[in-house]
């Protein structure tokens, strides 16, 4: 199931119908709550497109409240391990960010780096972009999955130049971080479709 959430609309509905800028923490928290209410209605695995097209300014505080905290709630960062005590994500949600301008990107990248998070955005040219904190092998593996469309560990082992168990581990990490989706035995990049 694919959800589309227009942040401009959520902002006007939840905070003030005159606003087009995502600034301040209270505004960000209200918008995130609006998004979470929509996500709560989803039953199964969902891909949610978070659309920044109608957002003017995004400041660091608001980016942290909306983007970073949403990812923290729904994604499992690479550092987390089973048994760490972390509560499982409330839904099997994946996020694709679109309509992200260069100035939005400044704020988003800063808050992702701060918390060690990453996300997938779709550029104006429809290309997928990996933004935030990823190490070199994770990035190469993600790029390979994106290029191939659908990949299994053996494909990634060949593309990245690692042993198959390592490739499997890389894919599992990217999947936990909600940067790729698992379908049966294979993986596809978020936003690329099955």
């Amino acid at each position, binding site marked *: 199931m694919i959800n589309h959430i227009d942040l401009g609309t959520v902002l006007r509905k939840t905070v*003030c119908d005159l*606003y087009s*800028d995502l*600034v*301040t*923490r*209270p*505004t960000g928290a209200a918008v995130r709550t609006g998004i979470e209410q929509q996500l709560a209605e989803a039953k199964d695995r969902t891909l949610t497109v978070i659309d920044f097209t109608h957002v*003017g*300014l*995004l*400041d*660091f*505080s608001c980016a*942290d*409240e909306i983007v*970073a*905290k949403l990812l923290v709630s729904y994604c499992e960062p690479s550092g987390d391990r089973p048994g760490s005590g972390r509560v499982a994500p409330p839904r099997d949600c994946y996020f694709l960010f679109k309509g992200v*301008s*260069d*100035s939005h990107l*400044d*704020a988003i990248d*800063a*808050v992702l780096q*701060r*918390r060690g998070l990453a996300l997938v955005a779709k550029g104006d040219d429809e290309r997928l972009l990996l933004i935030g904190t990823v190490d070199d092998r994770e990035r190469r593996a993600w790029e390979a999955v994106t290029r191939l469309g659908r990949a299994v560990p053996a494909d990634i082992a060949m593309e990245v130049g690692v042993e198959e168990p390592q490739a499997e581990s890389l894919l599992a990490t990217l999947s936990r971080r909600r940067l790729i989706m698992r379908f049966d035995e294979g993986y596809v990049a978020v936003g690329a479709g099955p």
Partner: protein
Amino acid sequence: MTTVINVPPSLDDRTFETILQQLAPLAPDEKVLLDARHARWASPYGLTAMLVLAQTRAERPAFYAPEAEDTASYWARAQFFRYAEGLFEMHGSVPRARAATESDVLLEITPVSKSEDVHEVVGRIQSKAQAILAKELNLDPRATMGFAMTLSEACQNIVEHAGRGGWVAVQTYRWQKRLGRRVVQIAVCDAGVGFRQSLESAQGRRGGERWDDAMALEDAVIRSVSRFRDAGRGQGLAGIRRYVGRWEGKLSIRSGTARIAIVPSWDEDVPLEEQLPPFPGAQVLITIPERSTPR
């Protein structure tokens, strides 16, 4: 008895210290009169800091307006008297407040106490900033959004940490003596709890540790420490630092008895000043210079 405090002819972040030096020996409830009759010019920092000063006095202070018509008229356009009248006993000729029409007043003095105020400030600045930063200061159009973000984060320090309202003003002018170029300045001043007390409220510092205004400023500005435990906090000042660094600007924050500065190559300021005359709250000054060649 009323003590007369002389406002220097040219009032900016540096010369405002002479006002604080005059105030330092006085009790907070002692009546003072700020004598600005001979003032000829004031930066946005100077104007907003005078309002903050009034907020810090237990006894309502008096204020003598500048005698020079053009100075008083400019302060009126910057909306200084509009707010000063609520804080001072006014003396002298106070021009009627008019809307700011001069192109160099990017944002007239505006009170900030809640999230909605930040939305308003950001909304008002964007269209003007676009024209002035790009055309007059030769800044990359990409600088405009960053400028508004910086302004937003600076104002949010008041909302999130000060515990009481403050003031913001933005203005461009030519810094002939110090730089020989135009600059845009953001001044955000409040009379709230200040950095030291704000950080103390959550950190539970150990006894015997050195802890003062200078250390609090270093923690907040250099190490991005926040009073909140949330890992995502403390990004506002970090973002301001990045913006200032990218556009060769200067960031200076005074709180309590200390002042910290991120000093660019064109300035000769010191990175940290201690044992200044005490002044409550936090006073933030961001200066972005004109680029000598378009970028």
